[in-house]
């Protein structure tokens, strides 16, 4: 027994670096190997009984361990069987780790002399036989690490002499039987890693001898019962990874022998009881993953034996109360992911602090990190995701043991001190997303063990020091989003272990050094968004591990080296926006490609068929190059293809039928080529996921297929600049998600289909430069989201401009020029307040231009019979009358103006007084106030425009004849004069 205990406590003291082993192995290391003595049995039929037990196992005769179990020898000599000296009474059966399968025979309950039964670490299945409850001499029962299922038999409660019961790591379910509380000799109760549910029975409080209670990794719920307070000899409590609720009981403070308390990953709430500070024996305290709130009790600082404290992932708040100054044994302090506030205390550690790991990431800590410089034993320091400020202190090199340093996602400023080079044990240095400035100190080259260097998203500058290439252990380097300039170090090829090199979004220039090709562990290389020049070095052919290469937005040029054909693992290639030329073939060596983006280069030649070996390609983007030849029919093999952009090349031929296999296509951009033939109807029948289809600027002819209505996911459709004929199909009405429709510059005939009104999300509609006839359908007024442009110019549209067009309140550009439109401009056009470009020229329009449109230039209206500003004056009588006012009339008007001005002033004063006395009752929206309101506006403001908008808005619908319009126009000008006079 003593030996058992010793094993357990040894396990608890295991050095940290050993504890990474898996749960099962760990359990196995705790296997009890018990020394047993042999005596003769008194039961003549014991052998028959054990053979029955054996026969319940699967393949009993093939098991090597049980091969000597036969009637020819004395049962006490059988493997695993122990009898007391000179007795034939079996007291112990130990078949641990014997490869047993099958079930435990209930006959075992007849072995009444049995004191120790160990069947642990086998593959036994079926239930735990309740007959075990008859073995009242049993002291040790070990069935852990099998595949036993069913309930824990309540009969085990009869085992009054049992001091060790370990049946965990099985598939047992149901509740813990309260009868276990009758096993009053129990010192060890292990039920972990099962599927037990229900609450912890309060009867367990009767187990006054209990030293070790492990119930972790079950589905236990409810509170931790108060009755456990009676288990005063307890040394280990492991209740972690259950669903326990309620608060942490404060009686734990009375467990004077407690060494390990593990309550992690439950639903515990409330504060950490300060009484835990009384448990001076405590070594390990795990509270992470609960819902604990409040401050960390200062009393925890009394735990002088404490080695590990993990309270991470709770809702703890307040200051950082824990002081390693007092916790002299503390090695591991983890309070990450809480809401701790305030600064890290000065001189956080004492001189002899044993704190090796400090994790305070994901809190709200402020201030500098200087207080930690006293923690000279630190090996891992994670303060990431806080609000720390100040610079990285020069004295950081006091932390000579430091291996991992994570300070990312803070607000640190200033340079990286050159003393960082003295931290020669450093393996991880993560400083990303701060405000660090200046250049990388050359001393970084002394960090021979550095594996990971993340400086991204800072404001660092200067050149990348050549000395960095001395850090030959480097595996991941990420400098994204800084201002590093100059060239990539020539000797970068020294970094043979480099797996990730990310230099995107800097100001690097010059050529890519050929030595980079010798970093042959490299898997991800991102040099995009810099100013790199020159061509790709031949040596890149050695980067055979490479799966991602992004070079976009540089000025790289020249042909691609043939050696790239050797890069068989490439999955993502993005060379877009460079000046590469020649054939793209060298990039097609891999058949694992998923993304292939060479947009905007000067690649020429045909699209290589080798590209289509990569059947998992989702994106091919070759737009803006000089590719020639046809679209290969092999494209139809790419069933995963989502985006195909071959726009602005010199491709010829027809759209290959096989493309209809690419049913997942959402983007198909073939515009700006010399493709010809009909637009096949299968495009719209089979590619129903299309959101964007651009076939513009090709030589497509024939009708627009009626099947177009099937592509109801289309958001942008452009067939601009082809030779399409026939009508605009009415099925267009089914494209209800369409934002942009561009059919400009074709030979489409027939009417503008009124059904287009169903495309309610259109913000851009261009049907110009076709042969469309008939009137502009008044239904277009339903397209109230039209914003960018409505362009119907250069057609043969006739009739009047529909009055309803004035509903397009968001429209910014309207072009109806070069049609046969006739009649007067509808008054409603003045409601187009968003309009800033208007072209109605070269139609048969006549009459007067509404004043609200007079701010548009002459060429908006030229080529019509329109008059009024900005065109010539209308010849209507009111105008000529106005020209020939008699002197008397002029004087009369002036008198009237003076009079009206005076009245207006008086009225204004009256209104002011009224408003002043009764503010809340004046409302803008009531129509009877409109007159006075608008007058005030004109009076205060500058101007003409004011009256224009005010007057034209609401009243325009009332205006009927052009005569009325005119008189009303002069009325506004009089009003203007009046106010000028008044002010």
């Amino acid at each position: 027994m003593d030996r058992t205990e010793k094993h357990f406590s040894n396990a608890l003291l295991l050095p940290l670096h050993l504890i990474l082993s898996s749960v099962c192995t760990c359990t196995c290391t705790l296997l009890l190997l018990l020394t047993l003595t042999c005596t003769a049995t008194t039961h003549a039929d014991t052998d028959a009984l054990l053979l029955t037990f054996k026969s319940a196992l699967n393949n009993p005769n093939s098991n090597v361990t049980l091969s000597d179990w036969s009637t020819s020898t004395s049962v006490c000599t059988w493997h695993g069987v122990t009898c007391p000296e000179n007795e034939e009474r079996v007291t112990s059966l130990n078949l641990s780790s014997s490869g047993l399968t099958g079930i435990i025979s209930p006959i075992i309950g007849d072995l009444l002399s049995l004191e120790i039964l160990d069947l642990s670490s086998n593959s036994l299945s079926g239930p735990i036989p309740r007959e075990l409850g008859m073995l009242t001499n049993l002291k040790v029962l070990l069935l852990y690490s099998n595949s036993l299922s069913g309930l824990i038999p309540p009969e085990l409660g009869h085992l009054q002499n049992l001091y060790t019961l370990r049946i965990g790591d099985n598939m047992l379910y149901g509740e813990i039987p309260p009868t276990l509380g009758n096993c009053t000799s129990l010192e060890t109760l292990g039920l972990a890693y099962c599927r037990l549910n229900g609450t912890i029975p309060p009867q367990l409080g009767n187990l006054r001898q209990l030293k070790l209670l492990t119930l972790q990794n079950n589905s236990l719920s409810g509170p931790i019962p108060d009755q456990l307070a009676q288990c005063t000899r307890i040394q280990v409590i492991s209740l972690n990874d259950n669903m326990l609720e309620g608060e942490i009981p404060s009686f734990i403070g009375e467990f004077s022998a407690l060494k390990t308390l593990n309550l992690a990953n439950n639903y515990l709430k409330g504060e950490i009881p300060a009484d835990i500070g009384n448990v001076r024996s405590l070594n390990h305290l795990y509270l992470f993953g609960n819902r604990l709130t409040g401050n960390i009790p200062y009393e925890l600082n009394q735990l002088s034996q404490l080695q590990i404290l993990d309270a991470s992932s709770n809702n703890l708040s307040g200051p950082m109360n824990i002081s390693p100054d007092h916790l002299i044994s503390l090695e591991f302090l983890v309070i990450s992911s809480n809401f701790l506030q305030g600064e890290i205390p000065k001189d956080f550690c004492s001189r002899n602090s044993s704190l090796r790991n400090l994790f305070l990431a994901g809190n709200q800590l402020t201030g500098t990190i200087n207080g930690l410089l006293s923690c000279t034993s630190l090996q891992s320091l994670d303060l990431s995701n806080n609000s720390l400020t100040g610079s990285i202190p020069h004295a950081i090199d006091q932390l000579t043991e430091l291996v991992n340093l994570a300070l990312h996602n803070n607000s640190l400023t200033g340079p990286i001190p050159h003393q960082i080079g003295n931290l020669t044990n450093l393996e991880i240095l993560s400083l990303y997303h701060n405000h660090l400035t200046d250049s990388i100190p050359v001393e970084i080259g002394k960090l021979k063990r550095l594996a990971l260097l993340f400086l991204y998203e800072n404001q660092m500058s200067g050149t990348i020091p050549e000395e960095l290439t001395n850090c030959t252990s480097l595996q991941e380097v990420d400098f994204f989003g800084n201002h590093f300039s100059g060239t990539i170090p020539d000797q970068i090829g020294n970094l043979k272990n480099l797996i990730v090199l990310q230099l995107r979004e800097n100001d690097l220039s010059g050529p890519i050094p050929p030595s980079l090709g010798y970093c042959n562990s490299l898997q991800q290389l991102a040099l995009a968004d810099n100013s790199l020049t020159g061509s790709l070095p031949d040596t890149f052919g050695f980067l055979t591990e490479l799966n991602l290469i992004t070079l976009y937005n540089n000025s790289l040029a020249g042909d691609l080296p043939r050696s790239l054909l050797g890069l068989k693992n490439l999955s993502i290639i993005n060379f877009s926006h460079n000046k590469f030329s020649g054939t793209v073939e060298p990039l097609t060596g891999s058949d694992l490609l998923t993304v292939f983006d060479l947009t905007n280069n000067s690649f020429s030649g045909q699209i290589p068929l080798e590209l289509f070996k990569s059947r998992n390609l989702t994106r091919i983007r070759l737009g803006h190059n000089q590719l020639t030849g046809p679209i290969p029919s092999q494209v139809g093999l790419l069933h995963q293809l989502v985006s195909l952009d071959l726009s602005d090349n010199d491709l010829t031929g027809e759209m290959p039928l096989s493309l209809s296999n690419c049913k997942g296509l959402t983007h198909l951009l073939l515009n700006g080529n010399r493709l010809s033939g009909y637009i096949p109807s299968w495009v719209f029948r089979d590619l129903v996921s299309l959101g964007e289809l651009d076939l513009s600027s090709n030589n497509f002819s024939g009708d627009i297929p009626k099947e177009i209505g099937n592509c109801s996911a289309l958001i942008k459709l452009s067939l601009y600049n082809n030779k399409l004929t026939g009508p605009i199909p009415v099925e267009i009405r089914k494209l209800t998600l369409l934002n942009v429709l561009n059919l400009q510059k074709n030979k489409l005939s027939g009417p503008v289909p009124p059904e287009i009104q169903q495309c309610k999300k259109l913000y851009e509609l261009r049907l110009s430069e076709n042969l469309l006839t008939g009137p502009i359908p008044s239904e277009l007024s339903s397209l109230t989201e039209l914003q960018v442009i409505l362009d119907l110019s250069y057609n043969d549209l006739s009739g009047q401009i529909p009055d309803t067009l004035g509903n397009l309140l968001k429209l910014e550009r309207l072009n109806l020029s070069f049609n046969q439109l006739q009649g007067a401009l509808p008054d409603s056009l003045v409601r187009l307040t968003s309009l800033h470009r208007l072209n109605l020229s070269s139609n048969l329009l006549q009459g007067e231009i509404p004043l609200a449109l007079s701010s548009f230039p002459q060429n908006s209206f030229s080529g019509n019979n329109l008059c009024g500003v900005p065109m010539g004056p209308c010849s209507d009588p009111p105008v000529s009358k106005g020209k020939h006012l008699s002197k008397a009339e002029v004087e009369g008007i002036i008198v009237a103006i003076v009079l009206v001005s005076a009245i207006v002033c008086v009225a204004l004063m009256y209104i002011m007084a009224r408003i002043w006395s009764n503010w809340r009752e004046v409302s803008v929206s009531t129509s009877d106030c409109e007159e006075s309101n608008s007058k005030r506006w004109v009076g205060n403001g500058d101007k003409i425009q004011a009256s224009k908008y005010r007057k034209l808005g609401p009243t325009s619908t009332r205006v009927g004849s052009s005569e009325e319009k005119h008189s009303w126009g002069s009325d506004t000008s009089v009003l203007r004069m009046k106010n000028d006079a008044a002010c």
Partner: protein
Amino acid sequence: MASSSLLISLASCLLFLAVSPALASNSEGEALCAFKSRLSDPNNVLQSWDQSLVNPCTWFHVTCDSQNRVIRLDLGNSNITGTLGPELGRLQHLQYLELYRNSFMGKIPEELGNLKNLVSMDLYENQLEGEIPKSLSKLKSLRFMRLNNNKLTGSIPRELVTLSNLKVLDFSNNDLCGTIPVDGPFSTFPPESFENNKRLNGPELLGLASYDFGC
């Protein structure tokens, strides 16, 4: 024992997990993804917003200029619920913010004032509340500002009179208070732009009453 092994592996994972996102992606795409994460999108209009792409220019409802900078965001009438976040202010080149006719809630983030190229801010017919941020007066390119049919409160910030390009403004059907400015572009807006704000008290009378009178 088992439990301690669990802890240590967990803790060391924490360090490495937190450090792992190498190959960070572009900022506009990130901003849009951050925005997406606030939204409930039952019609899946944001399905194509894949952050693993180099830039958001091939995402639907996002339009870029020739330099791959986001200039339009078109999510009008898309049955979206959620809030607007400060990240939208990072779309430095945005010209059109079309989020009308959805169920956007919460405040208009003051960071929208950073969209110095914005031409059109269409947030009408949502459920936005709080005040109209003063910072919107920084939108010197703004021509169209439609915030009508929301639940906006407070007074109309006087700073908006400096928006000299503003051509169309609609604040109607909110719960604004105080008086209506009369200077700058406000001299041109019709009364309809302000109607149905029960506590809005008409054009301001310079010097006679404070602009937030009655708020």
